């Protein structure tokens, strides 16, 4: 294991070139009682989050809530417009033609869920166009076990 000690006093940074080596290291470091701050990888390594003891993300739940918001928004706006704000006779249809509202309701559900989730994801991970979170700047600030991006 090619551990290398970075300039920082309190922190240990390790660099690995294969996930097969990384996994046992993560387990051993944790077992030894070290607090593991983060692991940086250039691609998603499945099971690593569990190995690190991270809890599951609740991004899905957020997506579900956003979706429901979209459904409600679509139905209520269309319903209000056609029954209250601007009722019209269009092709003899009733003022609340539910079948005709389904496509837009569906689309808005998807749109709200997708946009909401991506924004939440960006917020949680602090991602934005001019954020300077490169690997090296992060490493100077934090403690990490890292796997260099090649």
């Amino acid at each position, binding site marked *: 294991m090619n551990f290398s000690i970075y300039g920082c006093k309190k922190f240990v940074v390790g660099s690995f*070139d*294969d*996930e*097969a080596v990384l*996994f046992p290291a993560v387990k051993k470091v944790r077992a030894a009682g070290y607090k593991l701050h*983060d*692991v*940086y*990888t*250039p*691609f*998603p*390594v*499945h099971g*690593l*989050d569990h190995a*690190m003891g*991270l809890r*599951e*993300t609740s*991004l*899905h739940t957020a*997506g579900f809530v956003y*979706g429901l918001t979209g459904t409600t928004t679509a139905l209520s*706006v269309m319903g209000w*417009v*056609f029954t209250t*704000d*601007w009722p019209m006779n*269009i*092709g003899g249809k009733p003022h609340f*033609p539910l079948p*005709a*509202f389904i*496509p*837009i309701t*569906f*689309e*808005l559900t*998807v*749109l709200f*869920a*997708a946009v909401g*989730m*991506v924004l939440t*994801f*960006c917020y*949680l*991970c*602090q*991602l*934005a*166009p*001019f*954020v*300077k*979170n*490169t690997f090296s700047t992060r490493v100077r600030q934090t403690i990490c076990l890292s796997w260099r*991006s*090649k």
Partner: protein
Amino acid sequence: MHLKYESTLREPLVDGVKDYHQVTEDIISPIEAKPGKLWYIGFFISLVLLGFGAFSVFWEVYFGTGVWNLNKTIGWGYDITNFVWWVGIGHAGTLISAILLLFRQGWRTGVNRAAEAMTIFAVMCAGQFPIFHMGRVWMGFFILPYPNTRGPVWVNFNSPLLWDVFAISTYFTVSLLFWYSGLIPDFATVRDRAKTKLRKLLYGVASFGWTGSTKHWQRHEALSLVLAGLSTPLVLSVHTIVSFDFATSVIPGWHTTIFPPYFVAGAIFSGFAMVNTLLIITRKILGLEDYITIGHIEAMNKVIVLTGSVVGVAYLTELFMAWYGANPYEFDTFYKYRAAGPLGWSYWIMMSCNVISPQVFWFSKMRRNIMVTFVMSIIVNIGMWFERFVIICTSLYRDYLPSSWGYYRPSWPEVGFYVGTFGLFFTCFFLFAKYFPVIAVAEIKSVLKTTGKSYKEKMGKYEAQDVDAFAHDQAHH
């Protein structure tokens, strides 16, 4: 613990001896190198086409839709044909990235990035047509439901065209988000490798400050999965809604309940053909044959023969129903004016390109032949263009009242507009091929050890081992 691998019977998805570093090198280095001569020629031609398209659109907007040859009987022609055609092409990208992700089809990783890019550019092209087919495009914002002081005045939520507005814009937005969220880690890889300041800055901006933290990857995976889950019904809904433009109308030949599944199958059909066209060129020019293998192309050809046959069944079902439904107007439309009549030739181009010719893909040799695939991919898209032309024009040109029957030939601004969208599409695609990682680096890396050729070969010894010995070995590993 790393014995998760695919059966050696399955074709490897990454050829050659690769490690993680080699994957990065292969895919990222074209971005860092100067583009070749072919790239410049192609890009220049695309720009010329785009310019001609822009001029055609200017001509139409300035002098009126009357410079097109649409008329009192045929209100939609090239414009909406092209719209549906481009939207259909877009569908393959979402299908590959979303539906195949849900189905855990490993082969999608090689082609999904380019296919998604194709989706986005195709939807951009598609969007031009409903915009500029409007007689008063400068009043186009009327189509958005925004609070106003004119009454109030709202849009008509009953109109399939309004559903289209929502469907297409949602589709474009979600596809863009899906594509870009996948690109962020790869942009970060380019940024981390960047040698020049400008590249570091630009890819730094583009990568949103991605670090590769495990927590971020965990969220990223969750996001991808949910976006895939959302995109799957979305992609089905989009072409369903596009088909509603016709299916919910009263015109014989349009008013058909079979349209949603038939349109979706047709969309996937033409989309996969377009993916083949693009990838056969891209893998050759960028030297990515190890990542976009014959196996990938064969898998797509299988989808093409399947969806082509689905579409064929739909055509026959339509013909059957036109007879069985005992509606004289519908019978006339299908048997007298679609399969025959002045525009009958277009029906037979459609039939031969979409139903008959793709049957060659029942043969493995044909599916694995690059030249055959390339030619077929173009034939399929010609056929699918004619399918939309047939649906739109052969229904309209002879509908209820024979007094209004007419004929339609496109004028130069209509053709110019269509050609112009090719310019737009390929301009975008050339820029994409030069500046973006055309294959999802991170995703290839995550399947490399299970499906890479060199890794699979190492598994040969386990395959040969008997079960007891294998269990014994593993227990002491």
